[in-house]
């Protein structure tokens, strides 16, 4: 990495001496460099950030923050930050730009939107975003919904934070598999299922470490021997893509051995007999054969989970990216339910908010429900016809289906998207990059909101510089039972803007009202979100957090938030929509079992998406201290496999898949922590230091090699884990 860049950044940072004592000013706020929301203290001198440290009073992180949190100032002050609105001055992807004023940018956008509203209607306007360290989630939904379109959402909704909410909501009426809800702090047995928290959600990794130190049992389900797996009592090295079978095998043991919570099941669960019958199809020996996990380990973990109370399952994105992700997640939800671990302290607990406060998602859902014609409009959302539980009116997340959207741009079906607001590095973050590239090049009008120039932003008509979380007010509302003000620590650099300000300015110009509740500007927006609490944003700022007591077992008073008021092991809603009402397993396809001929050409099972502590999705590669920890994309290969292929540690290795033509390369990391039949690639790689407009992503980003075809399942998942590939040493080594 460029040493000069690093020096430039650090000039802004003085050695801090006895920190915590002598600084002129400390701002208490909440980190958003990942989803966790650690409390931080931002130290300033003469208006500049000189250090970020953890806030010891914050209940989540108790003073500890991770490398991404600590280096957030390197993002803010980065010399490559986008500081002004830009207009394209050449062909798309030619990297020719003209600086324009905010007025010009907003007027251009407004004119375009007015045209589209007149000729094509609101549906032709869409907005997608990712996990950027800004308040884009609120901003993008607000803008698109206020313009009258339902086509706003996370750009990865069908394979991240999509399948599991759909599965859990349709089982017990709420979702609980995340950091905030899998209650490690109070648990005696934790199953980390398909996640790597000490790298991806470090603050949750800390809670698990603490639980472990006080004697809680720990099980890790992962094809890779991760750091957290190395600390576990049992590590189940599952074949990528077969987790649903593993969960069903555990259910088989728990039900047949009578280890489930009989009282809870009798009183609160529907469809136990049907589930019991279903799991007979998954005897342990068969499951061992499918998953490559030894039968005795499956039995041991099933018994451990069912007989240790309370126990929690922390299920992360891996299972959401399998062929039938939703059924896999349903199987996990059934495990939580039949063991009586739902909404109990130390189990899987529903979030609760201070009375009178709505989370952003809660507010939006309520608005859609109450809106005249709301259901009909949501039925128009892209993907709602094919994947109603994910994209239709009853979806817990109300997002369009990602690759359906890409294809609507390319084919005009079911209707064309004309204006697309993109607020992430979409090109790198969706499968089949070439297809995404075509769509981004083709769409009539592309506006990108960003912090940095990226391969995606390179294709925009207009780029809007967004303000970082250190530069905007916001309310963090994704905790278990509290909310916190996230006040800005500094003013935005250059002409970057609070994204809510962008929203209000565009709406004004188009002549539309902010839709969810009355508000005319960003400050009013923050204040009015707190109205039900009788508070303003400034009041909330005075507190570290505002918490609500966790009721636990709320179902005893209110029942479960399902149509029947019970836990639906047998899902009535799934049945109504024509899906299997009981969880099942589908063999990965293509795969060594389902397509053995293809597996002769592509002999290795491929799993993707591994991430290291430095990075959040595609972010962080330009941040000197983070990049130093993880300079290159790595593919994990077992030493035996590598030896057969003549690959040594550190060699560049080409990777090919049967899904898409072409190849990409990553650097070999030899490790016996992966099965010799499996390799694992890191995702979302690019090199911000390489030449525009591609920054080298076509060479190294594994998403290029994956198919964008939605699986014909409940949520139209895109398969990122449990694929096939072949690898060979790159010539230039």
């Amino acid at each position, binding site marked *: 990495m460029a040493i000069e860049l*690093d020096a430039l950044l650090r000039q802004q940072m003085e050695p801090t001496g006895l920190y915590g004592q002598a600084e002129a000013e400390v701002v208490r706020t909440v980190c958003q460099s990942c989803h966790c929301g650690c409390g931080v203290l931002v130290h300033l001198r003469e208006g500049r950030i000189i250090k970020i*440290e953890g806030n010891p009073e914050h209940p989540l992180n108790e003073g500890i923050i*991770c490398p991404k949190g600590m280096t957030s100032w390197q993002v803010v002050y980065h010399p490559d930050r986008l500081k002004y609105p830009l207009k394209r001055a050449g062909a798309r992807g030619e990297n020719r730009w003209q600086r324009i004023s905010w007025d010009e940018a907003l007027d251009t956008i407004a004119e375009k939107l007015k045209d589209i509203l007149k000729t094509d209607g609101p549906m032709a306007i869409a907005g997608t975003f990712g996990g950027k360290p800004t308040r884009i989630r609120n901003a993008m939904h607000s803008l698109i919904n206020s313009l009258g379109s339902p086509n706003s959402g996370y750009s990865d909704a069908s394979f991240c934070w999509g399948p599991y909410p759909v599965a859990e909501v349709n089982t017990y009426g709420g979702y609980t598999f995340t950091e905030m809800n899998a209650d490690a702090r109070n648990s005696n047995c934790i199953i980390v299922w398909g996640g790597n928290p000490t*790298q991806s959600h470090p603050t949750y*990794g800390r809670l698990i470490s603490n639980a472990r130190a006080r004697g809680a049992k720990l099980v890790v389900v992962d094809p890779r021997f991760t750091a957290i797996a190395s600390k576990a009592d049992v590590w189940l090295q599952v074949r990528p893509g077969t987790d649903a079978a593993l969960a069903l095998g555990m259910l088989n043991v728990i039900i047949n051995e009578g280890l489930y919570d009989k009282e809870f099941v009798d009183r609160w669960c529907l469809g136990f007999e049907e589930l019991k019958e279903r799991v007979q199809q998954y005897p342990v020996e068969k499951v061992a054969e499918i998953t490559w996990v030894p039968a005795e380990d499956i039995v041991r973990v099933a018994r451990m989970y069912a007989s240790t109370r309370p126990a929690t399952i922390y299920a992360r994105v891996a299972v959401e990216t399998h062929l039938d992700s939703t059924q896999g997640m349903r199987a996990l939800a059934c495990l939580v339910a039949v063991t009586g671990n739902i909404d109990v302290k130390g189990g899987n607990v529903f979030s609760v908010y201070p009375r009178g406060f709505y989370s952003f998602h809660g507010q939006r859902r309520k608005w859609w429900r109450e809106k005249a014609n709301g259901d009909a409009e949501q039925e128009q959302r892209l993907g709602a016809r094919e994947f109603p539980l994910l994209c239709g009116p009853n979806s817990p997340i109300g997002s369009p289906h990602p690759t359906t959207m890409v294809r609507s741009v390319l084919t005009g079906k079911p209707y064309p998207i004309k204006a697309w607001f993109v607020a992430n590095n979409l090109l790198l973050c969706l499968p089949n990059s070439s297809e995404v590239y075509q769509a981004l090049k083709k769409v009539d009008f592309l506006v990108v909101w960003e912090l940095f120039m990226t391969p995606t932003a390179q294709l925009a008509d207009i780029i809007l510089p967004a303000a970082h979380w250190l530069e905007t007010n916001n309310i963090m509302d994704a905790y278990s039972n509290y909310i916190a003000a996230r006040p800005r620590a500094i003013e935005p650099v250059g002409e970057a803007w609070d994204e809510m300000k962008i929203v209000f300015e565009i709406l004004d110009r188009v002549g539309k009202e902010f839709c969810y509740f009355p508000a005319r500007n960003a400050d009013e927006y923050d204040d009015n979100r707190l109205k039900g609490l009788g508070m303003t944003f400034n009041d909330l700022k005075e507190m570290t957090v505002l918490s609500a007591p966790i009721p636990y077992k709320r179902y005893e008073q209110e029942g479960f938030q399902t149509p029947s008021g019970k836990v639906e092991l047998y899902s009535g809603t799934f049945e109504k929509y024509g899906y299997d009402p009981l969880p099942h397993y589908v063999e990965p396809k293509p795969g060594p079992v389902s397509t053995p001929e293809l597996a002769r050409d592509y002999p290795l099972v491929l799993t993707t998406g591994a991430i290291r*502590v430095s990075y959040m999705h595609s972010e962080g590669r330009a941040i000197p*201290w983070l990049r*130093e920890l993880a300079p290159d994309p790595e593919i994990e290969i077992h030493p035996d496999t590598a030896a057969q292929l003549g690959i040594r540690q550190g060699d560049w290795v080409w990777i090919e898949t049967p899904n898409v033509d072409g190849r990409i390369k990553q650097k070999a990391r030899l490790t016996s922590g992966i099965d010799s039949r499996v390799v694992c690639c890191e995702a979302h790689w690019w090199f911000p230091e390489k030449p525009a407009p591609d920054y080298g992503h076509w060479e190294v980003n594994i998403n290029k090699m994956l198919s964008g075809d939605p699986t014909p399942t409940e949520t139209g998942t895109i398969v990122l884990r449990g694929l096939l590939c072949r690898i060979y040493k790159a010539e230039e080594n």
Partner: protein
Amino acid sequence: MTQRNLLIDSELCVGCQACEIACKQEHNLPVGPRWIRVVQVGPRPAGGRLVMSFHPTRCMNCGKPPCVDACPEGAITKRADGNVLINEALCTGCMACIEACPFDAPQFNQETNTVGMCTLCAHRTDYGLMPACSLACPTGAIQFGEINSLIEKKRAERAARTLSRI
């Protein structure tokens, strides 16, 4: 005089590298020198299963520090409290200490053309504050203090941990 040092429990360390970044931040270090660096050992088979551990390596503040003897400028000293410190003003960047150290502790800094290494955050710990790495560690793997009592405490803690798992 009482001897003070870091005590690192690699049984607790999860390799998250928060200590590395906290150290960079505290000492305003460029890309390159890593005064504390987490070394991964394994995974390797042992007793029928895989094991892996993480070892944050840094200056050990050796009893008889070879770097002190190696430095031709006499820039390195061991203080009475055990802390081995490099005097940057005397350092010419010849890297003899880097050669001499068995732990890869001294680190060359391209910007200043000198060698630096863990100072036990003397600018903090001399005034009763904890070192930056120890404050940043999510698992409590890094402790600082009088070394004999730290070791005593650690023995008790480990015994309790082992018992809680039986």
